Each structure stands twice: as structure tokens, then as C-alpha cells.
């Protein structure tokens, strides 16, 4: 999974390769990352260098208190980026909206019915992809017109899942 992490206006592209490796600027680095006693205190050993910091999830960003200095960071992963691209763009306030799969996956649930009125932000489809559950939300309020998929079905990227009017 690749992440775009921003700290003090500096952008870092960090790929989490596996449990013990990350890649930054094409350099593979060994990481050993452990929560201390299940607390929001983390011990990081990065290519042998040992760091320890408080890491909190704030409302909008991550806060890292490291060696007496507080950092505020935003962490965005590819999936979120795509989700944002899928549902987060400007959507016409009326007219038909086609909800498309932002990535290939498996439909886990469609918690709405055809003809149902939905609010902006309400979950329309749950899509499992990259081992994760992704909630696809209504970009605006409206009426569910046609549901084209059902739970258990596999979908391709950009396949239309339902329409909202």
C-alpha cells in the first residue's frame, strides 16, 4: 500500500511493502514498528535507528510527539485518494448520478433499496477490496433509482453499481 504523507508542507511518498519493509524514494528500508503496551506510544526501529513517539489520531490528521516536538501530519492512501476521486468530486445537485466502483472488488452489502430516499454521506454500497471494506457514500441526497449489483457479486473498476436521482 502506498501512502502520501504530508508534514510541515513536505510531502513523503511511503510505500508499506510488508510488515517489515517500507520504500521511500526507491529505497527499501527495514522497519520494526511496535505499540508499547498497547498504548498510543510506538517504538520504531528503522534500519537500526531506534525512535519512540506518541502517535495520536486527531480529528483530521495524525499527531506525532517525537523528542519533544509535535508534528501534525495528513496520511492519505491510494485507496482513499481513489475513493475521494470517485465520490468526492463535484456532483451536480440534481440529475442522475452513476455510482461506479472506484476499484475492482467484491460487493459485501447494499444497505439501501431501490426507490429509497438517501441523505448525502449515507452508505450506498460496501465494497471489499485490498482486503478492506470500503464504504461508498452518497455524494448528495437523492433517490436510489436502480441497484445493479447484489452482495457476493464481483465488480470491475468503473463498473456502475447503482444510480441516484
Amino acid at each position, binding site marked *: *500500500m502506498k*501512502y502520501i*504523507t*504530508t*508534514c*510541515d508542507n*513536505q510531502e*513523503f511518498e*511511503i510505500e*508499506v511493502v510488508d510488515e517489515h519493509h*517500507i520504500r*521511500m524514494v526507491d529505497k527499501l528500508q527495514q*522497519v520494526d*514498528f511496535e*505499540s*508499547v*503496551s498497547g*498504548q*498510543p*506510544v*510506538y517504538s*520504531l526501529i*528503522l534500519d537500526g535507528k531506534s*525512535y519512540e*513517539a*506518541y*502517535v495520536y*489520531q486527531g480529528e483530521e490528521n*495524525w499527531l*506525532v*510527539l*517525537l*523528542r*519533544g*516536538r*509535535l*508534528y501534525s*501530519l495528513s*496520511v492519505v*492512501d491510494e485507496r482513499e485518494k481513489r475513493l475521494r476521486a470517485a465520490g468526492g468530486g463535484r456532483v451536480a445537485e440534481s440529475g442522475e448520478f452513476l455510482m461506479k466502483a472506484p476499484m475492482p472488488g*467484491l460487493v*459485501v452489502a447494499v444497505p439501501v433499496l431501490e426507490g429509497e430516499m438517501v441523505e448525502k454521506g449515507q452508505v450506498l454500497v460496501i465494497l*471489499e477490496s*485490498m*482486503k*478492506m*471494506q470500503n464504504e461508498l457514500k452518497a455524494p448528495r441526497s437523492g433517490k436510489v433509482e436502480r441497484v445493479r449489483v447484489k452482495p457476493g457479486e464481483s465488480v470491475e473498476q468503473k463498473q456502475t453499481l447503482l444510480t441516484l436521482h
Partner: protein
Amino acid sequence: MFKKVLVANRGEIAVRIIRACRELGIQTVGIFSEADRNALHVRYADESYLLGPAPSRESYLRADKILDIAARSGVDAIHPGYGFLAEREDFSAQCADRGFVFIGPKPTSIAAMGDKAEARATVIKAGVPVVPGTEDVGNLTDDDLLSVAPKIGFPLLIKATAGGGGKGMREIKSLDEMPTLLASARREAESAFGDGNVYLEKLVEGARHIEFQVMADSFGNVIHLGERECSIQRRHQKLLEESPSVFMDEELRKKMGDVAVKAAQAVDYLNAGTIEFLVDKERNFYFLEMNTRLQVEHPVTEMVTGVDIVAEQIRIARGRQLSYTQDQIEFKGHAIECRINAEDPFNGFVPSTGRITHSLLPTGPGIRVDSGVYPGFEVTPYYDPMIAKLIVWGETRAQAILRMRRALEEYRIVGVRTNIPFHQTLMDSHRFMGGQFDTRFVEERFSLDDAMESRESHSEIAAILATLAAHQLSERSAHIVRRNERDASNWKWVGRWERMHR
């Protein structure tokens, strides 16, 4: 000999006093408010009694209830700690009336030093230098003050005679602004102390706040245990204290120590007390006030002298002689205390409350922690935000600073925000290291933000930490609904669904 002592306080100082008693084989009685049932002093005392609801005026300030508990539990003496009833002459007098030894000075000494104007007048008579200002005690009118102000010279300070903690204090730059600020100072003093009386003092610029610990027994012996440098303050609240002061030399120490002893003698002092001085750049020193009680920062003196001040207080209160003569007091090394407050230094130092879920104390050579909290304890908004004092000793000041640095970095508290990052930044400040500071340093010449900027940045490491934490979090939520686990019975599925969405 005391068999049992009531500790009329809470938090770290109550714990400190209970420990001293225990080490002397004296039984202790603790008192607690409803918010403090699980406080450390309640756990450590031999007996503990509930006072009342959380607010201080319904609990720790209820002298009547405390005295009843003292009677019921059959104590010989009462130690007031600091704050709450410690400097209330009426409480000291009531203790005596009801047959309990008050471990502190006589009511008359508390009274004499409690009124700032009276205290000035008293020590002036004893030949102690005070900051130039209004010499008269009592009710000075606005006209009196306005006429005397130019003689003192500007800038000057308006101070409340009943005052303390900066309440009713105003800085005056010129005669023009004085009437307005005088009125506002009186209003504030009136509402804080029920006494609108104020007096004037010359503003000593670039001053250091240096205080002397004195101890006096009932045989007329008065000694001092050297000075503490307390100039690191924010809004008149001390944040860090050290002993000795970098500013001090043997000659000045002797001079100021003698004056401190004289000031204590002027009010026929008994037990432990502190004489606060302002010291200007030319090493002129002025009596500021006397704290007629044990001080928060007493441990730095204990670390450099080896004297157990609380044990000595109890000794004196029992009517024994001081264990030391002035000649026997030796100073070894350097001690620094950082007050660890539950407040957010990155957000205007607003108090932070909550349950401490985890804590890792710095330990090892030369470290002392005086704390009233522990993992599982709830920090409430009712009392002062100081949750611990971190004190280090080193052979030299440089060594003490290095040791404090490593101790601050080791100290972990989860559940409340603390001002540890502030202290870390301060320890890295060149001015602090060089001893170049006065009482206005933190507020005027030390910006946490700027200091942060100039500190070594580890933004790449921070980015990796945040990324890995975010990754772990999303992996974990994904784990809940791994595909191969989906064939669970329906209610299990519902359970998971609910867990995910609450």
C-alpha cells in the same frame, strides 16, 4: 513524640508528608474529597477520611471538618502542606486551640507575613532591604498612591496587600495610565481576596527571583539552607527551580542568607519558611515576601544539602532542636526541578484532564520523582494541574541539565497532555543553558513555537510513524472482515457490523 499526624492536603505533597511520617514511624491520617478516593495519598495513609464534594471549598478548605477528623482520629499534630489552609493564620490558631500541634509557624508569624504591606514594614524595621515603594501600611487612598508614585519612579507595580499569585498586580509605565489601572487592580484584589488594598513597588527590571529556605526551631536557632533560583515562570507560576542559582557566589549567598535569617527572626519565625527576593543585574537584592510554609520546590534544596526538610519540620514541631547548625549545612552538586503539569503546551497551556492509562517514570541515578498520580488515576479539573515534580541531581549544573534531558525524554504519560515538551525545549535553549534569564524570560524571550522551529526536525521519521500507525489501523479494521471469516452465523455478523460502526 508524635504518634499520629493528619496531613491536611492532597496530591504529591500529601504523599511527600506521609512518606516522611512513615519513615519516622509516625501514623498518618489522610483526608480526601469525593474526587480523590483513589488518590495516592488516600492509599498510602494509615487512615483516610472523606471530607466532602470535589470543590476545594467543600473539602480541602473545610477547616471545621478537618479539625473534627483530627479529633476523631486522635492525632497529635497537623501538617498543612502548601496551598489550601497552609497560610491561614486562623487555621493555625484553631489547631492550637483544639490541642493539635500545627506543623508550621505560629499564627502571628503567618499574619505578619500574610499582609504584604505589613510584611514590608516589619522587615524594613529589621534592616532588610525591600523594593523601593510605599512604605506605609494600611489603607492608602488613590490620591496617596498617585502622589507617591513619581517619587518611586516608573515603571512600577501595583500589588494587592492581601495578594499572591499575581492577582491584583498591574505594571504601570507612566502616571497617565495609573488611575485606570489602579481602579482595575483594586477591583481584582477585592474580588480575589475580599480586600481592595494595594501598595506600590518599583519594578525591578531584568530581575531574578531567588529565594532562601530557612528553618527555625523553638530554641531560637534559625538557619538557612541556601537559595533556589525560581526565575523560570509563566504568568507568575514557577515552572522550574534549581539550586544553587548560577547567579550566586559564596559572598552573595552569605549576605542574602544572613538577611533571610534576619527576616525570619523579625517575625519570630518557627519551622520551615522561604524568603523570596528579587535580585537585579547589579546583585542588589530586595525582600519580596515570605512564604510561611513548605514550598513546592523544597526538593532541590534537599538534593543539594542532604537535609530532609519535611522530617526536620516534624522534628521542630515536636519541640526538638534543629539537627544542623549553619556550619553543618554543605552544598553538593546541582539540582533542578521541573514541574510536570497536566496541560497542553501546544495549545496555550490549557489544562488537560482525563484518566492516566499508562505511565513510565524516568528512574536511575540522580533522579527523584514526587508524584501523586499513577496509571489508572483520573486527573480531574478541580485542583491544580501539577501532577508530578521531576527532580534531578548532578555534580554540576551542566550534568544536571543533561540528566534532566534524558529523564524528560524517558518520561511517558498517556491519558493527559503534559508540559514535558515545554521543559524539553527549555533544556535545549542556549539562554537557559547559559544561565541567561530573568523572571520575564519564558514570557518575553522564549517562544515554544520558535524554539520548536530551531530544534532538529525529524519530520521524515514523524511521517513514517504516522504512516505506519495509519496503515496498522486500516489493516486492523480490515482484519475484522477478512473474506474467509464471512461464513459466520448471522448474529455474529451483526455483532461485527455493530462493532465496526459504533
